[in-house]
């Protein structure tokens, strides 16, 4: 009898032993199911309805998804989001890499400069900085007065649709500190011998930068590109506080449009559909970036490279 029981209890013991890790990660699983998967699934469901928070749901519909690409305001938000992302990300990466390259030199007070350049990225996301930015660039603000001192006529930064988006971009580019620190760490990892070899071959500083430094740090460039792209598509604070999406929706990014639809007009179905479209777009860009990396990202531990 005991010999018959042992295999069953042995199976149970083996199962528990093999899967004990699952028990330890159970809090994460519960959190994921409750705070990630359930909201994901709910928003996907509501995106196919006309659900209004106060008026309820009347029908299932694909109209929300069609509207994202046909309704003027929603199309515009999509275009503005793309403009913002493709303006901010390259600018931020270029500035961050340039400053990191300079701060990689052994110059007096370099630590002070590194700290000074890093501070905006700590402060930048705050409401206070957005309000300060608004005060700087509004009509009659500090920047316009500075232009006037030199006898120049400054544009209406916040009320001109052509300038307003650039001002929001500028706020995000100003916070290049975190990307700069990552680039700095990568630059320090470039072997000195490569620079010596390049110098012996007659390469100047610019050649060394583009032919030695940049290829070596492409993994870090790739990392920063992905993280900054994701952050840019999700930008909210600047447009919300500085321009409230104006003037004339010139700074209404998709995230702000989703917020307005969800919490101002309570069109939850519409907002859910817009959020899913944004998610899919971001997913596509991320997949493209990952697929393309084999063509331009150099990993020193890869065979034959």
């Amino acid at each position: 009898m005991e010999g018959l029981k042992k295999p069953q209890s042995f199976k149970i013991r083996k199962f528990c032993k093999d899967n004990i890790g699952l028990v330890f990660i159970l809090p994460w699983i519960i959190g994921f199911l409750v705070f990630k998967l359930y909201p994901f699934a709910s928003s996907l469901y509501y995106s196919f309805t006309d659900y209004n928070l106060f008026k309820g749901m009347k029908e299932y519909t694909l109209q929300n998804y069609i509207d994202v690409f046909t309704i003027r305001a929603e199309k515009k938000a999509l275009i503005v989001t793309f403009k913002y992302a493709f303006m901010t990300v390259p600018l931020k990466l270029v500035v961050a890499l340039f400053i990191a390259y300079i701060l990689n030199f052994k110059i007096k007070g370099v630590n002070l400069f590194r700290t000074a350049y890093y501070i905006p990225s700590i402060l930048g996301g705050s409401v206070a900085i957005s309000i300060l930015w608004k005060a700087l660039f509004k009509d009659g603000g500090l920047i316009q007065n500075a232009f006037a001192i030199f006898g120049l006529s400054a544009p209406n930064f916040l009320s001109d649709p052509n300038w307003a988006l650039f001002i929001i971009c500028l706020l995000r580019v100003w916070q290049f500190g975190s990307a700069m620190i990552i680039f700095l760490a990568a630059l320090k990892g470039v072997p000195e011998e490569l620079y010596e070899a390049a110098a012996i071959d007659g390469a100047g500083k610019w050649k060394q930068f583009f032919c030695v430094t940049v290829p070596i740090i492409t993994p870090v460039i790739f990392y920063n590109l992905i993280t900054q792209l994701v952050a840019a598509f999700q930008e909210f604070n600047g447009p919300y506080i500085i321009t409230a999406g104006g003037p004339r929706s010139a700074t209404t990014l998709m995230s702000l449009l989703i917020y307005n639809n969800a919490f101002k007009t309570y069109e939850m179905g519409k907002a859910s559909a817009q959020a899913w479209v944004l998610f899919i777009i971001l997913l596509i860009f991320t997949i493209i970036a990952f697929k393309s990396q084999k063509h331009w990202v150099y990993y020193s531990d890869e065979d034959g490279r």
Partner: protein
Amino acid sequence: MFNIISNIKEENIMKKILGAVLATTIVASTVLSGCSAATKTEGENSTQQAEEKAVTESAQVSEGGYEECTIRFDWWGGDSRHEATQKAVEAFMAKYPGITVDVNFGSWKDWESARALEYQSGTGSDLTQINYSWITDYNVDGKTFADLKQFSDIIDFSQYDENELAICEDVNGALAGVPIALTGRIFYWNKTTFDKAGIDTPKSLADLKAAGKVFAEKLGEDYYPLAVGEYDRAILMSFYLQAKYGKAVIDEELNFNYTEEELKDGLDFINSLEEEHVIPSIKTIDGDGAASFDVNQKFLDGKYAGILEWDSAAKKFITALGDAGELVVGEEFTDMGESTGVSTKVSMLYAITNTSEYKREAAMLLNFLINEPEGIELIGTQRGIPQSKIAYETLEKANAIDPVIAEAHTKVMDAAEFFFSPKFDDASLKGDGGAYKDVFGGISYGEYTTDEGAKILFDAYTNATK
């Protein structure tokens, strides 16, 4: 030997499993209890729980026959209203010891969306100041706000006319809120700036149009007799249309009464004010970077010499302007058509949320603010001239009716002929992505012609009143 080793291994595995389960339980219960304390999922369940709690819990009852409790009260407004209301709340707490009132107040910006979500999630304050349109917007099924008729032993409804209360009922005939005051829009002029320009404050539309040219010539291009944002323009246009065509934009039966051509006429009127330098463009106002005119530097400097505001809002602008200018009440224009075209509405109401666990105590606070002398005198005219008869008499006796607000209110009420429908403030019209901002801003920025704007506005009004 192998059995012993096997048993030891088995024990170790069981200990690990037990340890893991205990750790998981502790962490999960900490996380989930923190979450569940912060949110209520269904308003209805909360209402039921509140009722059950009231019945089953043995609460401490004071000598005055009310429960000792803490209630929450929220309102929006300017600094002067906050100060006055807080003093009134302190007086209430002194009069009714045992009831603690936690207050929440702020400016109008983003106030509505924050409160709406609270009502939906069942976490709204016990006593809440609401807009007239919130009865239809956030109380669609009549479940958000309690029926105040059940507190007729606490709230003295005899101070109101029946029809004043009737318009505050919800779809189920329940009294969703008590009207605090009636209000309408009227012009306010910075007399100091008009004196600088050497002209009187406008008494008619003709005067206003003439003032535009004078301001540009004598004071400069950045001086304007009047400043109106998108929503203000919608109201000014409604006055013009109602005066000219003699029918409400949206009437009591929620019918939208205008054609595209008539709307175009109204938009042309607003456009003409911009062209004649009477009002600044929306682009100019956007560039000021101010959330409202009382914090707009150009208004404070006297460059915007007029506003079109609610009669109850006078104090906020007078306080903001300070000694920099003298703000005087204007006239409702009679030369826009057969009448003034002015419409009035219930300015704001006090309501009690259905999820309140202490509705009777909230009703006591409500009655204190609108019907009891101590509350009335402290609140004063911070929410306009009170509609409650005893409130008006109390303030009149104490000479506490602010003369500026009284003047504005009298002029508005004397000129009022039309009903200001709550649908006029529907989120699809008035909200940040709404039709008013789109159309009036679009025309001002030159993105739309008035024909195109009229079509968009017509569709928006039609959808809002469907």
